[in-house]
Structures are given as C-alpha cells and as structure tokens.
C-alpha cells in the first residue's frame, strides 16, 4: 500500500532564485537532494562565433553582455588579452584608472551578490541596503563612460578619454561612506543566529575538490587557498598595489560570505591607493588605426569578481578579427561544483549553494 518514491523536480529555468535561466534537475527524497544535474544553455547567444566575425574593437562590446554585473572586469580581460596578442602596453595612468574602475566593479558585483544571496536566504532588507551603495558606483561608471551596466569602459591601448572632471571628488565621497555601510551589513548578518544557521557548514567543498574542479575566485579562497590572479599573474597596475588576499579555512557558505566582505574592504583599499597615487600622463598608447594581427595565440586571465576570467585568442596573419576567440567563464567552471556541494543536503541548501557560487548565466551560456 505504501511505497516511497523519489520526486523529480525542475528548479528553473523560471525560478525566483536561480539567478537567471539556470535549470537544476533535482531528485528529492523528501526534502533531501539525492541527485542534482545543472542544465545550462538557455541564454546561449553565440558570443564566441559573433566575436570571430567582428574586429578586435567591435568584439569588446559583446564582453559587456557576458557577465553583465561585472562588465568592466570583462572589458579589462578583453583589452588586455588583445594587447597581449599585439604586444601593446597601455600607459601607466590608463592602467591605474583601469585598476580603479575594475575594483569598483568588483565591489558592485559583490554587493549584488550579497543582495541576492541574502534575499535567497530570506533576509530581505540587506538587498536594498546593498543596492543603495551599488547605485553610487553605477553613478561613477556613468560619469566615466556614459553607461551604467554595459560599459565598454576601456579601449585597446588605453582609454578613450581621461577621467571626467569631478570624478575624483565623487569617488572620494564614495570611499568615505563605504566602510560604514559595510559595517551596516555586518550588523545585520554576521552575528545573526538564523543567518549563521543557514550558512555555517552549508555547501562545503574542500580545497582539493576545488582545484580538481577548476573552481576559482572567492570559493577557492574560502577553502583556504590564497590563489588570486591579481597577485599570481598581475596585470593592469596590480603589481604596484598593496593589498591582501583574504582566505578562510572553513570552505562553507559563511566563509565565502566573510571572504567576499573582506574582498570588498581590500578593493576599497586599492581604489584609495589608485586615487592617491594616480600618475599624470597620456591615457592612450600609440597604436595603428587598423589592427592587423599576426599568427599568435594568447590566453589572458584576470581576476573577475567570480573567479578566473580567461580570454583565449588565436590571430591569423593580417586578420582584422580573431580567428578564434574563447572565453573561460568563471561561473561556467564554478557551476560544475554544484552537485558536489549539495548532494545529500536539503532543498533549502541548494538555494544557498547557488547563491554562494555567485553565478551569472549570461557568462555561463555566452
């Protein structure tokens, strides 16, 4: 008369907390997850194919649309990758400004992560607090390049324009308020009993598994591995910056939360150094109007807010566009760790795990 049956359930692609169009096929035994299969591709636009048919200048616009919450990081990866392919070095001032904007974008991205992650777990108020500060940053981006989200902020060889008048003042105003605001989030969450209950020990993945699965970014650092591409393979002006790599040994959701908060503090520090030590000089290197590549292949990776963002270019002789362009999207690789994190755990932990991985589907599906 009684029989037990496993319930198969589709989490997504239309679901409030899958951060886009992620679909996770779950097999549930009661509320316990027995098996989990992420299904992706609902946002596939063929960015790699399109970029193969656009010039190096045009292709950059498409990078904004991949990780749309960290467009500036994507721009940085693209322009530095192309510069490496051609052997161009951007002027020092341009590199400082790039560093500063990328770090601002990292804060914006982490704020959005904090907002949505807290909302997923049920803490609604942090969402709006984090968006309040993100708004200040988006205003800064708007002042710099006229766009708030799809910025296309940099150009191959440097920047299109220098900083607009008043930008430094506006940035300093943000620098002033931000540490207090971070404290505010911490008072709401860090010692909150329910928050700790929902995050401590949840979605663990240890350092060996992280490295085997290629997981990078804050998830890897929360497992105790101090691997940060800004330190390991510094580009832009990171080699001249003084900052630390925050790590935690626990490798759980709470550790990732602490690591990301600490990263925001470090980014704040880097922005301050950029503002204080901004060198004078040109912002654009001398490059030909038409870039024609040679036979060459480069893989350039930067530390995006989600992890290692790599661009792989193959150039052909005299080519105006890349012969092949491939993006190593951090979310794409990190999402592979999801089954490992949640199998045998409860359904509510799936939501916490998706939130803590900080995936952006525009980047996964490309």
């Amino acid at each position, binding site marked *: 008369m009684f029989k037990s049956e496993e319930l198969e359930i589709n989490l997504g692609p239309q679901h409030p907390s899958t951060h886009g169009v992620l679909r996770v096929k779950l097999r549930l035994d009661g509320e316990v997850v027995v098996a989990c299969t992420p299904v992706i591709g609902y946002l596939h636009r063929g960015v790699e194919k399109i970029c193969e048919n656009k010039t190096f200048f045009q292709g950059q616009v498409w990078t904004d649309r991949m990780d749309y919450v960290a467009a500036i990081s994507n721009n940085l990866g693209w322009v530095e990758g192309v510069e490496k*392919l051609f*052997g161009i070095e951007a002027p020092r001032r341009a590199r400082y400004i790039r560093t500063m904007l990328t770090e601002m974008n990292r804060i914006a991205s982490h704020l959005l992560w904090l907002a949505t992650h807290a909302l997923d777990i049920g803490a609604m108020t942090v969402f709006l607090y984090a968006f309040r500060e993100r708004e200040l940053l988006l205003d800064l981006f708007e002042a710099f390049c006229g766009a708030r989200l799809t910025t296309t902020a940099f150009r191959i060889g440097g920047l299109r324009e220098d900083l607009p008048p008043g930008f430094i003042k506006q940035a300093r105003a943000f620098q002033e308020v931000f540490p207090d605001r971070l404290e505010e989030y911490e008072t709401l969450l860090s010692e909150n009993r329910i928050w700790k209950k929902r995050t401590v020990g949840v979605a663990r993945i240890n350092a060996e598994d992280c*490295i085997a699965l290629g997981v990078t970014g804050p998830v890897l650092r929360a497992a105790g591995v101090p691997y940060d591409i800004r330190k390991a393979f510094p580009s832009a002006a990171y080699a001249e910056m003084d900052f630390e790599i925050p790590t935690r040994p626990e490798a759980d959701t709470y550790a990732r939360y602490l690591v990301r908060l600490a990263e925001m503090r470090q980014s704040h520090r880097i922005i301050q150094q950029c503002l204080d030590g901004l060198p004078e000089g040109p912002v654009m290197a001398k490059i030909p109007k038409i870039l024609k590549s040679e*036979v060459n*292949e480069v*893989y350039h*990776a930067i530390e995006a807010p989600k992890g290692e963002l790599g661009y792989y270019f193959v150039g052909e002789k005299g080519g105006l566009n890349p*012969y092949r362009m491939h993006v*190593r999207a951090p979310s794409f690789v990190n999402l592979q760790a999801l089954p490992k994190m949640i199998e045998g755990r409860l359904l509510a932990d799936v939501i916490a795990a998706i939130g803590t991985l900080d995936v952006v589907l525009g980047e996964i599906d490309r």
Partner: protein
Amino acid sequence: MSDPIEPQAPGEPEVPAGPYVYDYAASPQRQIAAPKTVPLPGLRAYLAEVAAQQAADEAKWKKMQADYETAKAKAEAEGKEPPKPPVKPVPRKDDTDMKTPWPQEARDPDLLRLQSLLGDRVEEAFEQAGELTCQVKKESLLEVLRTCRDDAELKYEMLADHAGTHYPAAKDFAFSLVYHLTSVSRRKRLRIRILVPEGFEPESACSVYPSANWMERETFDMLGVRFKDHPDMTRILCPEDWEGHPLRKEYPVVGWGQRDIDFRDDRAGVLMRIAMQKAGQMGINLKQP
C-alpha cells in the same frame, strides 16, 4: 546523438533539411568565407615563414640588381644617362608602441623538463608572448596531462581552460585542442596542444582533471570533436536536437535559418504534430485507431 560523426571532407557543407521561414541563402551573412590559411602558431612554422620571406626578399633584391645591370648596360649602349642604382628596401619602421610577440625557442625549465620527460611525444615546444606552449602527440594526451599534474617539478594542479579551433584549410588535421594548465602553487601557466583530424576521438581529460567535463562537452557542442571515455558526451549549450556545430568555420554566422513553426497562429496544429510524431516513435498510429 549516439552515432559517431562521420569524417567529413572540408568543402561544401550540407545544409540541414527542414522548412525555413526566411531564405537565408541569399543573405550576405550566410556566405561563408572559408579561411584559406592555417594560422597555427608555432616556432617551426614561424622560422620557415621568416626564411621564406628572407629568401623572397633576397630574390627580389637580386632581381632589382639584375634589372639595374641590364638597364645600365642598355643605357650605356644607347649612350644615355645611366639609371640610379637600386637601394636595398628596408622594412618600414612605424612609430607605434606595438611590439609584436614572435615565437621564441623554449628556454623555460618547465618546457625543457617536459621535453626530457616525454621525449619524442613532444612535437613542438616554444614560447610566445610570455606563454609556454607544448604541442604533443594526440594519442599521448592523457599521459602528458598526468605527467604535468603529478610530476613534482611541474605540479600543474588545475585545468583552467580547454578550447578548440577549427582549421578547415589544414591538410593533415582539422582541429587544434588546447589545454591551459595552471599551477596554483608555483603560479605558472602552460598550454598543452594537440592536433586532431576530423573523426578522431581524443581521450577525455576527465580522469585527470575533473573540471574538463563541461569544457569537453562544450568543445563537442561547438566543434563536433567527441571525446573517448567521457562520462556524459552530450551537448551543453545548444539544444539537444541542434543541427551542426556552430564554431566550425563552415557554419554561417546567422545559422542555417529559422524553422517554420508559428506558435501563435496554429498552436493546436503544432501540438498535434508533435503528438503525432511522439506517437509515431512509439509505434502508435493516432490517425486510425
């Protein structure tokens, strides 16, 4: 899905059958400009090219001198003013900040170590733009990766990226597959490259680097390269019933066209057609019960 891909000669691709709304055949984006060169970076190819270029320059110079000699002899014979002697052409120096990175000989200890460990399994090793590239034989890929991961002096623990490139103009291979390895502890990167012909199934790297799982699925989806012993060799980004592999060079940017399915006008009809199809697959004839 399960049947292996037939080896296909590069050339005119087959257009998949099916009703299309728009005729993209006439569209300019549909026209496929098949690449004529094989832009495969490599030290040997580069040196050969440089040598060929030098030889061509030399020949040109010789020809110019010879032309001058004949012109001079002719002018002398005719008693005219002799022409100006030719000037050896020097490459034009442009005033840009570009320093094109050319391939260089392998000097990095990691590449030398790999060469000594693997012997003739290494086809080519060179450095370019500060990056290490090691091209190995396609049959020994797994062994090479395992060496890179386990060797105490190499210790490339992480597979950061895997990608493939289609070279339809190449004679003896069709794809180059690259594996970007990262050593987290030593902060180094290494690129392992193999060249595979159409229809060849390279071994899956999943047993060495579990992160290769989705990356190889993506390569299969985009290029049609299947991997041996892969746990789940299915499409990942495109839908399961997608035709063709979009990142091949013969695939048009706009795709093959748009299917003739209009859900707004004939919703019930479409549902009916799908039901008929499904029933037909199960051996049921819905029309005549």
